[in-house]
């Protein structure tokens, strides 16, 4: 593997049978080192200068003290933190429970759509219709329909709570997107894999379970994790049904004195929650063989 900086060619590895770099190579290495140093210095200095300009520039605008007091009031933020964090706890719980159900339903729908043979036509049709409908309906609309609409029917045996129906709306809607992601994964498995499995005598179900799905699921983990990062935020939409999530909690705090710091606090908490998930996604993607930027000559 070669990169611009290059290994320090002046000290050869012991296993190289006493190879020492030629003077030409030493020249090249020295030149590259010098260039790296220079570009590093330029990058560092320009970053510092830019930051300083931004800080000074923003800090000296006439509106800045007001903006800072309204959006970044530290004490107000600290005060609002427990309430907002408690709201966030609802977001987290909803997301975790819904995530499991979404994966199950999404996988089922994807498998239904990839079944072959005329006997499975109704299942394929149902799965296709389902994904079309729920990818078409706005999530907020489904939340209203299920959260207010279904309890209004007062049908015996159905639960009433807003959280449950809000969660159901999230599950039904997100499953349609996740089903398509899984389907893409399943269909991306080379047909020879199925052929090899069937040729060994594995049934259709066994092929799916032992050969196709293990590969397909691993393959689509990065886009799947992306959907879950999104779910974390959308879980807050169930606040329209009356439950208090982090955003609603921030809104209630803000309504007291028109200081928007609670919103900033809620935002920071959401970002803090997202970052581990996005880093995990990157790590999984790399293990899957996604090459990623950085390093290398091209």
């Amino acid at each position, binding site marked *: 593997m070669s990169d611009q900086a290059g290994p320090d060619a002046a000290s050869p590895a012991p296993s190289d049978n006493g190879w020492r770099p030629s003077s030409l190579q030493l020249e090249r290495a020295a030149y590259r080192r010098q260039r790296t140093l220079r570009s590093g210095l330029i990058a560092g200095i320009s970053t510092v200068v830019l930051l300083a300009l931004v800080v000074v520039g923003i800090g000296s605008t006439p509106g800045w003290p007001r903006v800072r007091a309204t959006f970044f009031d530290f004490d107000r933020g600290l005060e609002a933190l427990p309430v907002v964090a408690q709201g966030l706890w609802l977001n987290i719980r909803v997301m975790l429970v819904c995530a499991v159900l979404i994966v199950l339903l999404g996988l089922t729908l994807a498998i239904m759509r990839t079944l072959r043979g005329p006997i499975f036509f109704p299942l394929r049709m149902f799965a296709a219709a389902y994904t079309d409908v729920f990818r078409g309906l706005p999530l907020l609309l489904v939340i209203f329909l299920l959260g207010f609409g279904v309890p209004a029917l007062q049908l015996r045996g159905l639960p009433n709570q807003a959280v449950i129906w809000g969660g159901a709306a999230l599950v039904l809607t997100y499953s349609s997107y996740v089903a398509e992601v899984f389907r893409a994964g399943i269909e991306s498995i080379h047909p*020879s*894999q199925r*052929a*090899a499995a069937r*040729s*060994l*005598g594995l049934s259709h179900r066994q092929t799916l379970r*032992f050969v196709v799905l293990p590969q397909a699921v691993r393959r689509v983990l990065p886009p799947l994790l992306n959907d879950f990062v999104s779910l974390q935020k959308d879980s807050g939409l169930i606040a329209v049904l009356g439950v208090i999530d982090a955003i609603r909690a921030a809104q209630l705090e803000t309504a007291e004195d028109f200081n928007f710091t609670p919103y900033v606090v809620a935002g920071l908490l959401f970002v803090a929650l997202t970052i581990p998930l996005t880093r995990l996604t990157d790590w999984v993607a790399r293990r899957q063989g996604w090459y990623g930027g950085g390093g290398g000559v091209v």
Partner: protein
Amino acid sequence: MSLLSIRDVRKSFGSNLVLDDFSLEVEAGECVVLIGASGSGKSTLLRCVNLLETVDDGVIELDGTDITDPRIDTDRVRSGIGIVFQAYNLFPHLSVLDNVTLAPIRVHRVRPAVARTRALEMLARVGLADKASARPDELSGGQQQRAAIARALVNSPKLMLLDEVTSALDPELVGEVLDLLGELKAEGMTMLVCTHEMTFARSVADKICFLDRGRPLEIGPPAQVLENPAEPRTQEFLRRIRL
């Protein structure tokens, strides 16, 4: 009675006629090599024998049973036939050992411990004993194909189908695979092989079948088909690939 009897098989894909009244007999213990230009129907024929494709017409009999009968249990039939493809054979998410034990455990209901022992024996047989716990992507192309052959053999198939198994390999890896196939033949395995490797064909095959546009144009012992082909198209084909 031949082990494998293919009679008047016809197969089209859309408007493309790939196998045209194809007939061939393979005796037990025989190695029959199929040669022909790409698109001549060699792979399709193997896939029909393995029931990965359904024939449009004709009969295929394996050990006296008509396997083209729609009432047949396809999974059962397939577990009695071993097939190895040109590429993408092994399951990349499983170790080599798990690849080989998958079918015995799940299909033939062999106890896992027994399956593992037999698998290790088979891997040793193909020279991969030390690679049992490796992942397929850690193996060279030749090693992967040998593992695929081991995986097919561990089910004790009556018939082995090999579709251009060395075509995707670097030349220096081809030999180890062909040597293995030669050993299998010597042990009495019935084989139907598609290949471009003429040296292998000449030394190992009992019969060579030249396919031209879906028909078995010439069938005969290697000496005859390769040295003194009767048909002009056979001659033309052999001339082309020798160049």
